[in-house]
């Protein structure tokens, strides 16, 4: 049914006026960082990240390692959360959630989409964060799946200050080999303004994204 690969590539080659595959790899346009870079490693990255993440509509709460478990429980209680799926590998937090009477499903026990659909909140860490835009970077690994930050109405994400990169150019300075099946830049709660331009949060993904920014410095 489909035109085969050789034929397809041939037609592209012909369109470009070539009869043979190019023998040497073309040199791609250099990315001039003096133009394209929007944040520098020497900037105050946690401050920049917090400011820009807030501008994207995410709620940023500053905390420390010691106070993290309490900050998490406070946040969930304030939000009226009854059940969570947690991919946070942290026994102290699991204990705190249990004490607060929040039904916490350990991701390692139930990794189904069904569990993600049912939970009031998804708790995850992040693979990195970007000061440039205020984005979270998540990746699919056995330790976290792509439905968890997406399906529950609330996503609570723990970000360590040391994980914050300056610019997208730093995230992709080297090709990742092999790349994860999914890398997601999450930059705010799910939103739309399709109906008469009225902004509404929580279309398909979470209505709220809360960032617990752990900065002991």
């Amino acid at each position, binding site marked *: 049914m489909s035109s085969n690969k050789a034929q397809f590539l041939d037609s592209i080659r012909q369109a470009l006026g070539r009869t043979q595959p190019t023998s040497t790899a073309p040199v791609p346009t250099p990315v001039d960082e003096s133009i394209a870079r929007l944040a520098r490693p020497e900037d105050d990255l946690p401050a920049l990240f917090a400011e820009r993440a807030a501008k994207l509509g995410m709620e940023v709460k500053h905390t420390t390692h010691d106070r993290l478990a309490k900050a998490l429980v406070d946040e969930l209680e304030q939000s009226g959360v009854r059940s969570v799926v947690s991919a946070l590998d942290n026994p102290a937090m699991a204990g705190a959630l249990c004490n607060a009477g929040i039904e916490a499903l350990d991701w390692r026990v139930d990794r189904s989409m069904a569990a993600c659909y049912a939970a009031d909140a998804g708790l995850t860490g992040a693979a990195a964060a970007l000061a440039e835009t205020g984005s979270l970077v998540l990746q699919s690994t056995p330790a976290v799946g792509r439905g968890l930050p997406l399906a529950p109405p609330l996503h609570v994400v723990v970000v360590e200050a040391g994980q914050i990169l300056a610019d997208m150019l730093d995230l992709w300075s080297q090709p990742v080999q092999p790349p994860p099946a999914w890398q997601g830049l999450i930059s705010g709660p799910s939103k739309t303004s*399709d109906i008469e331009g009225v902004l509404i949060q929580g279309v398909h993904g979470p209505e709220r994204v809360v960032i617990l920014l752990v900065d002991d410095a």
Partner: protein
Amino acid sequence: MAEADTHPSSAPLTHEGHAILFPPLPYDMHERADAAVKDTALLSAIESATMGKYEGRKQMCARAFGDDYPAMRKLAGDIKQHTLDHLDFYLEQFIERAEATGAQVHFAADGAQANAICLEIAKRENCRSCVKSKSMVTEETGLVTALEGAGIETVESDLGEFIIQIDHDAPSHIVTPMIHKTRREVAAAYRRELGVDCTEDPEELTKIARKHLRDIYRKADLGVSGANFLVAEDGALVLCTNEGNATFSVTAPRVHVAFVGIEKLVPTRRHLAVMLKLLARSSTAQPITVYTDILTGPKRVGDAHGPEQMHIVLVDNGRSAILADPALRPSLRCIRCGACLNACPVYRKVGGHSYGAVYSGPIGAVITPLLRDPAGYKDLPNASSLCGACYQACPVHIDLPTLLIELRKRLVEQGKPKRIERLMYRAYAASLKSPWRYKLSQWLGRKWLRMTADRDGFVHRTLPPGRAWTDHRDLPAPAKQSFHQWWRKEKGTKAQRHEGKSEIRNQK
């Protein structure tokens, strides 16, 4: 071009929407444009949707890039142009790397082939229900109609596209597809098609769609998407949305099929970064879309979520013919941000449906004739005042006015000019033969137009051949006196002219 031949005949025209995007050819845009211009509700809806983004884009880009903004657009344009100039190499690299991640790559010369590939996969994998995220290429090929024709229930997941689908309408903007619709129409469609009781509150309408689509995600075994970019160096496919519907559509179902135009490639992820920095700023005045999903292959061993199979259908559908034409090749740089639509005074007056095709606005006026049928869409390249606002807005530096002029030139060269046009040009040439003839013709023209003008200072209707103009636009009446007359009276005394000349001489 192939698509023009295959789409309307092979697919049943079940929805009115298809007649909007696939009208019989040759297409005369005047009828719809006239109706749109008179529809004040439509005009104010389009105006408010586009102007906010137009102003927002300028502010966002100035804030992010400052004086480097022109250089940034040039950089992005150069990256895309380089990739197109070596598309054979980058495509081959992409295919090899994507296959190494476990994705299956397919090749479709035209829309019918692309649809057939998708149907074959759906049949083989026994898929019954499909959820689809917004994709312009699938609009081009008419995939939804093809899937439904094969008995596979298909639901659009982008809120705007979802509403358009249930209301049997068609998108009118490449980024914000339902700017022509009101909340009242949405509520009416919900009541009629979904059988729900609802108010016209956008929040309520959105939450109903959320709930409805959750059930669809759970049920669907086929997820269809397009792609905003492909990365050659690692075979990645990139999706940008604000709603998260694409993420869902390619996460929940067990089979993912992506339709991608071959022009979507960039060499590396660093080049991708340059594009992402411009896309959302140009499109909706955001620094980045809420969800940027970078997908490399189906789910890995040990992954909990994600499709078991990932199929990437590379779609040509007229693109290699554009590629083969160096003068028009830059049109393939387009990253479908919609900025040129928002900037275009013509688009803002006539709306997307007037273009009679999937792609509207300035970029649509260029690529619709090229992808489908130049003779069938000969109005489109003329639907521009060549003011250049689109060029200024374009993040990949496509000189749209020059491309439009090139297309006009070709249309004139190919087609025979009308008799009336030949007569007009002959008369025009005759009037330029001597100064007195020129002055006389100008005087006559001015007199006549001032006589036919209404009190508001505009000519609304005049005799043929001028009527071809006034049928669709108003013509401002000329000034009382010509520039020549004014000059002679105000500044042009002999003495002054003499002085001027001697001054110039002295300067030499």
